[in-house]
């Protein structure tokens, strides 16, 4: 049994790491489903907490992965999100190198669509880069982007809390005006989308500084492998002066759609791109229906009080958990051997609780393993 956070979220296994915290697969005992959870130290969590309180309920979009709820325990804060299993655009490039232009257009169209929804709520993402653009594990089907990691996102026009916000972000995906410390604005995100586009088409991280210098002498020629109509759109996104760039994600999206129509049809020799399920099988003790639990033979579940119904945050229920479903389809059978002991007590009907407050509890003696459902 894993550690239970805030009496509700049972940590299953680590599935990734961000700049400041770990991302875990967790079982939500209340909603009875697996979700992803980012665990942050309280001191790193302010921006996200504010984001969740103010925005998460409203930014509910198929191409956005925003934290849906939060819970606090001791000095840590946990943010939950849909479980998305297909890795990030960085993984996709690692596996396939440069991607076909039409495929890139699909990814960019979804990214811009999600970004338009974010901007519509007045939020500047500020950290758009391949590692923050996740994918549903769609296999060889149409890819499905989820723009994630709102760890340093800001509402436009709001005063910034700390000086540190100035230097946050990822070197290499900064817009020039962002580097000069100007107020965060939507076109800075669009510049980063331009860099992501080049990265997807070339297979390696573009040199933003060199690009900015090149643009001083006017729009450079299309790099090798970038079709001219598509380059027109990307070059506009990459204009060093934000005044010369698209003003909105929707505007960029329209231009991209027009350019896509002028691209050649995909060749039959194009490599088949498959977005793998990167989540491993569930570890021992967990099945598709949740963890297998131990119950005491006597006096079991005395702790199952109403705490389970205490709301731990805002915005729960955003999203539909599509990622969860896909991930599970590939998890295969998880062995669930009940213990060798005799008759197994069926779990009581009330919601079971693991209130462990301080780390993982050893399995008490005189218990038997029973499937969670």
């Amino acid at each position: 049994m894993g550690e239970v956070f805030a009496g509700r979220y049972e940590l299953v296994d680590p599935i990734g790491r961000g700049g400041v915290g770990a991302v875990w697969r967790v079982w939500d005992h209340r909603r009875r489903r697996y979700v992803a959870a980012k665990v942050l130290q309280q001191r790193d969590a302010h921006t996200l907490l504010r984001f969740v309180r103010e925005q998460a309920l409203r930014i509910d979009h198929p191409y956005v992965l925003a934290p849906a709820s939060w819970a606090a325990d001791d000095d840590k804060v946990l943010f939950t999100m849909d479980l998305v299993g297909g890795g990030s655009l960085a993984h996709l490039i690692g596996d396939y190198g440069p991607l076909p232009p039409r495929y890139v257009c699909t990814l960019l169209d979804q990214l811009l669509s999600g970004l338009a929804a974010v901007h519509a709520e007045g939020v500047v993402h500020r950290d758009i880069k391949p590692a923050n653009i996740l994918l549903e594990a769609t296999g060889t089907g149409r890819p499905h982007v989820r723009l994630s990691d709102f760890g340093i996102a800001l509402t436009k026009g709001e005063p910034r809390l700390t000086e540190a916000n100035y230097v946050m972000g990822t070197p290499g995906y900064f817009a020039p005006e962002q580097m000069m410390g100007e107020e965060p604005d939507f076109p800075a995100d669009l510049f980063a989308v331009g860099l992501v586009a080049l990265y997807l088409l070339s297979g390696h991280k573009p040199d933003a500084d060199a690009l900015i210098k090149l643009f001083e002498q006017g729009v450079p020629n299309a790099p090798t492998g970038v079709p001219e109509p598509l380059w027109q759109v990307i070059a506009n996104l990459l204009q060093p002066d934000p005044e010369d760039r698209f003003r909105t994600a929707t505007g960029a999206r329209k231009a991209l759609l027009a350019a896509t129509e002028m691209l050649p049809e995909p060749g039959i020799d194009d490599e088949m791109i498959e977005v793998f399920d990167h989540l491993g099988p569930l570890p021992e003790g967990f099945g598709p229906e949740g963890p297998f639990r131990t119950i005491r033979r006597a006096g079991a579940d005395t702790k199952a009080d109403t705490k389970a119904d205490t709301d731990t945050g805002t915005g729960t229920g955003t999203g539909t958990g599509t990622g969860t479903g896909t991930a599970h389809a590939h998890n295969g059978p998880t062995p669930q051997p009940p213990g060798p002991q005799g008759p197994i007590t069926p779990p009581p009907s009330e919601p079971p609780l693991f209130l462990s407050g301080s780390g993982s509890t050893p399995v008490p003696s005189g218990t038997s393993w029973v499937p969670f459902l």
Partner: protein
Amino acid sequence: MDAAQQDATARARELQRSWYGEPLGALFRRLIDDLGLNQARLAAVLGLSAPMLSQLMSGQRAKIGNPAVVQRVQALQELSSQAADGRVSAAEAAERMEEIKKSAGGSVLNTTQTTASTGAPTVRRVVREIQSLLRSVSAAGDIIDAADTLAPTHPELAEFLRVYGAGRTAEAVAHYEAHQN
């Protein structure tokens, strides 16, 4: 596996033989043996996802799509032959592998890259010392296991083990610098 799939797999292996000198299953297994890796670690050094590595090894997929990965495969082949006949030590091989991992665009996988590597040779040396000490005590896989065990109760310690025991040098340098004050 039905006959059509078997045919496809055989054809993929044949293609791999003509492109890479031998089927990738055999090639990768030799790298794993000679360099003391496991599949997860080999995937990390090559910059491939674990499912992709597995598809290439089993012949479900013939071609390595990313040219940067092909270059890393070649570099690792050279290193593994040197390791096999004792021309490089295990510690040197580990260090070389870190470099190969970062070569030719490998940095795109870094989540939070720092630009602090310039003008910090001493920090780098200290970090390398810590890395090689940790790795001389235990294999990277075991360190990751230990870190996973610690993670729920001691996340900072787990992070330390992961970064120095199994992460990139750049990541370790960033960690070191973040904790200097």
